[in-house]
């Protein structure tokens, strides 16, 4: 086991004010059960799960309440024992209205009877391990929520040689992953070994930004006695180094091809939270029913890292943190760079809620944008080597095919461009709008193609 510095540097990227001090030293606190949990069926990327319980049913913790609907989907489990109050349509963090199961906890918090751990997981087959992960409904906990069992089953023609455990946590303010590494390094490392076995990866890199020295120390202790090609990589603090493609480049120097996936360069990246969930699913046999969310920002009375049941409302979370002091102008689910502004505290946490950020009025400006002055700062900042200024103007002119031509679809919506734009152009919103339109174009093309082959 060794500690090394990242060998490559991602072009672009920015250095926002991190403000991690607000919550980074506050140990993870478990939140008591709220009076109602509203569990969304859209916990992950892909098709929302199908609710399989009805009003009045009693459920036990870990019991399946939503079955995966499709290949890219994940099961949803009851976060505690109690009664199903209703199946409702409730908004998710992005505003979409999706089915959700409301559970009134009976406060006994009784697990399903057949939960059984596998302390001797090393003797299990790869297939059995993947099934355990899949049954536990594990999905990427860094933010995107890609179902983990899908990521861990690459097609047979792809060999995975490098496993990267992502502890970069490059989003400003968020500190949940940092705390997980400090407090549960051993378990994360076990989770990592499980994933190694599943993928057959020989090389493991644990990527941590150098603004988290305690996390590096803790992971070092946990991994100290490990043999093999295993290392902790210290990344220079820079946003967006937690993004998969950027991280792979910083560590291996390999570039994921346009429209490709990390597995195309033989790598898989898993977030530390996800790794811990894999450990819990395999070693303890427990489905994913809770996560750690950073509740932070200057208006929060007692910022902290809160272990909460999935389905806890944002309002309950903030209340648990002592409510607010002073005015709050904006509430963001996730981090300030890639999170989603919220208009209601009724929204509930999911497997991907890494943070809940409250911003005071002085940090929220209402600006209006002016025309591009062609300064090129956005081009400098874009870690995907795009030309956001050009793209945004094309999208404004509704010339989506031209934007697609110059690789609009590679945009990862990191926000580095908009962060730097002196003209305050709504660049990321343009990208999102453009990507949406191109997606529609692609779908239509596919349909046409399908029709042609039918004839």
């Amino acid at each position: 086991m060794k500690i090394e510095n990242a060998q490559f540097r991602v072009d672009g990227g920015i250095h926002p004010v991190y403000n991690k001090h607000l919550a980074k030293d506050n140990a993870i606190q478990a939140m008591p059960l709220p009076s109602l949990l509203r569990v969304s069926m859209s916990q992950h990327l892909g098709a929302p799960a199908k609710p399989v319980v009805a009003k009045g049913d009693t459920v036990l913790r870990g019991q399946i309440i939503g079955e995966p609907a499709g290949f890219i989907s994940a099961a949803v489990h009851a976060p505690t024992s109690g009664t199903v109050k209703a199946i409702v349509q409730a908004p998710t963090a992005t505003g979409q209205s999706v089915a959700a199961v409301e559970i009134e906890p009976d406060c006994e918090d009784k697990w399903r009877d057949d939960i059984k751990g596998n302390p001797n997981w090393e003797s299990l087959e790869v297939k059995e391990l993947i099934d355990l992960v899949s049954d536990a409904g594990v999905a990427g906990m860094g933010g995107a929520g890609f179902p983990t069992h899908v990521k861990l089953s690459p097609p047979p023609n792809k060999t995975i040689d490098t496993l990267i455990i992502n502890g970069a946590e490059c989003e400003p303010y968020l500190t949940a992953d940092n705390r997980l590494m400090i407090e549960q390094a051993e378990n994360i490392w076990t989770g990592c070994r499980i994933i190694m076995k599943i993928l057959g990866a020989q090389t493991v890199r644990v990527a941590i930004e150098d603004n988290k020295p305690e996390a590096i120390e803790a992971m070092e202790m946990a991994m100290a006695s490990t043999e093999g090609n295993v290392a902790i990589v210290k990344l220079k603090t820079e946003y967006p180094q937690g993004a998969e493609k950027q991280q792979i480049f910083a560590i291996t120097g390999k570039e994921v091809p346009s429209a490709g996936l990390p597995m195309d360069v033989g790598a898989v990246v898993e977030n530390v939270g996800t790794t811990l969930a894999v450990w819990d699913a395999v070693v303890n046999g427990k489905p994913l029913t809770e996560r750690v969310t950073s509740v932070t920002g200057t208006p929060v009375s007692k910022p902290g890292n809160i272990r909460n049941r999935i389905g806890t409302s944002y309002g309950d979370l903030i209340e648990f943190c002592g409510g607010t002091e002073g005015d709050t102008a904006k509430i963001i689910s996730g981090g300030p760079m890639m999170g989603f502004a919220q208009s209601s505290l009724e929204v509930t946490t999911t497997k991907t809620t890494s943070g809940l950020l409250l911003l005071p009025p002085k940090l929220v400006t209402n600006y209006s944008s002016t025309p591009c002055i062609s300064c090129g700062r956005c081009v400098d900042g874009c870690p995907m080597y795009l030309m956001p200024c050009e793209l945004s103007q094309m999208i404004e002119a509704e010339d989506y095919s031209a934007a697609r031509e110059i690789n609009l679809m590679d945009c990862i919506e990191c926000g580095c461009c908009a962060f730097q734009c002196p003209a305050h152009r709504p660049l990321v919103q343009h990208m999102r709008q453009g990507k949406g339109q191109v997606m529609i174009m692609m779908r239509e093309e596919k349909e046409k193609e399908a029709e042609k082959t039918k004839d």
Partner: protein
Amino acid sequence: MHPVLTTTLAIGGVGAACGGALAMAAKFLAVHEDPRIEETANLLPGANCGGCAYAGCADYAKAIILDDAEINLCAPGGESTLCALAAMMGVEASAAEKKVAIVLCGGDSDKAPRKFAYNGIADCTAANSTGAGDKKCAYGCLGYGSCSRACPTGAIEISKGLATIHPELCIGCGACVKTCPRKLIHMIPASRTMHILCSSKDKGPIVKKACSVGCIGCTKCTKMVEDEAITMQGPLAIVDYTKDYTNEETIEACPGKCIKKVPAVAKAMAGRQGSTVD
């Protein structure tokens, strides 16, 4: 020979040969375009709005002559164009009834509150994909004017965060319909005057919280008209524009206050175009 003479002869010869070739080409390779196409094109208004589903007026003219396209597809031209085309083609004029667009939402900013302050691109699609739109009602008009920017005649007015279409200006081209991310714009016969201006599929109590002029699904109006001219689609009452619905008492009777009478458009249209059809 004198070099000047040689050059003159050579160039003159080449010129004559080319001229001859061109003359032959003009005679044997000529493309005969039906003169009626141009005549037809001259009868069309030249708005190039695309409402007929052809690529501009010239294309439509070609389709009429060559592909027997219907002659009643030109909405802006109205009756006068139709009659002229009918006379030219020697067929009977059977007018497709003039259509106009309508926005089926009545919640302006006084009646339908917003759930957050939106500070992004002033475009309805963009606004609709940010937190699913800033309007409390998930179905109502966002008022960022994507439709009005698509309208070739400026018939759509945005005021107090609500799009309203002026039927006397609408040429029925349908360009606005597909721009609306909330699918609020419908093409209806221009003679219709009674409308239910709500598209919310939410149940009554939710509608009430989000808008003071929304359909609460009480079904009262459906019972006041004949021939199922208004039907319920879930909790929303919908006017069937192919049926007769003129009962103005429904306006007062509607507890949701979402039924509205808009002055007849057909008359205004005819006047504006100075139609001579009798």
